[in-house]
């Protein structure tokens, strides 16, 4: 008969993982979170702005248990976007409305790495690239 947990483990809420890259270098991947603990990923958020005030391509990649899941957006409006895993294709999608990492659910994985990168378009003056991840990890109590 299996016995689950002689030692009690539970979700420990971790501090917000934060990236503030001012300015970012084009085509350089910046890590927001990199963990090999069992993780409950609640939210992934990114934001970009520069003085050009036009759309600039950003790529977020969530590597889940070794598999990279990318998502692309062209923000530039200094607005937070919330990324989530699509149910139909292996991509991240995003919205200016708040969604959890798995739309209406958290994303669970034994290893998670979340990165963001500015790609393709020139970096304007006073560029700021921000990333945030809210999460908990499974820890002994």
């Amino acid at each position, binding site marked *: *008969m*299996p*016995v*689950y*947990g*002689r*030692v*009690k*483990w*539970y*979700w*420990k*809420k*971790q*501090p*917000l993982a*934060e990236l503030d890259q001012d300015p970012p270098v084009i085509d350089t991947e910046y890590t927001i979170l990199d963990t090999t603990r*069992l993780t*409950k990923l*609640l*939210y992934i*958020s990114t*934001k970009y702005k520069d003085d050009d005030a036009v759309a600039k391509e950003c790529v977020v990649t969530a590597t889940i248990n070794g598999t990279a899941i990318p998502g692309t957006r062209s923000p530039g409006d200094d607005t*937070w976007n*919330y990324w989530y895993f699509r149910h139909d294709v292996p991509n991240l999608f995003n919205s200016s409305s*708040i*969604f*959890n990492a798995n*739309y*209406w*659910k*958290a994303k*669970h994985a034994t290893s998670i790495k979340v990165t963001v990168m500015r790609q393709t378009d020139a970096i304007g003056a006073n560029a700021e690239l*921000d990333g*945030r991840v*809210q999460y*908990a990890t*499974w*820890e*002994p*109590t």
Partner: protein
Amino acid sequence: MSVQVKPIPLKETFVNISESNPNEDEWYPLLPQTDLGEIMSVKIEQQNDETDAKNIEVRLTADDTEYVGTVSAPHSLNEFAVRSPIQDALILLASQYNMNWYTTLKGHSLQLDVRITSTPGTNQVLLANAHFFTAPAGTNWWWKHYPTAVVNQDPPVNDLSYYEILGEVEDVRFIYFGGRQINDEAALKNVELTATIDSIAYTRNHGNLGSGAWNYWHIRPEIAAALLASTTTYNTARYETLDGQLGKVEIRIRSAPGTNQELDGRVVYELYEEVA
């Protein structure tokens, strides 16, 4: 020393009942008493030849706490049972929600029953189904259901120490953070709710909380140690639950109290506890 790193393999089950010519006021079991369960959703429906609406009740018994919900169910339309965040009852909604709005309801012991409380119609049928999960026998730890933690501070003192909605608990799954203020003038007030979870104080001072309406505080995605508050029903992490190894929740008013000022807080939660 054994270490739990694998997820508990849950068994997924759908149960359905279809009771023809049910007796008025007789309870019919939908989910017999079940150990180590997690209810995703409960749906009921009634049909009769007259196509009349009938009163239907759903009863949830979760770890010795009982919740009942009643609805005048239209003929042949679904109603979904949800544990209310603002009262100790179930509510029945025409829109599809899970048992705890966007999330599930867990307990060491769960049971569901349904009944018709109107005079049954011709060829009356009472239909219900439940979608739930169970952990295997031998599971050492599971979430135990607790009654909602409540504070009713009438009147509150302005800007003083917090009023505790839920004192410090261990290994907690927070489902809702609810807060409300009421005053005779229907004036807006500043109300601040703080949830301290694993040494981080998540807080929001809602500067213009309307009188009478419940607000649901939930963790903010992109700002450290912050909550958002909304009259829209959300769980503690929007559509998800906020968990922690240590947690407590407090509320206070930060405006001069109005006439007959009331300050109310409700926290719905479950604790991960050893199975007896």
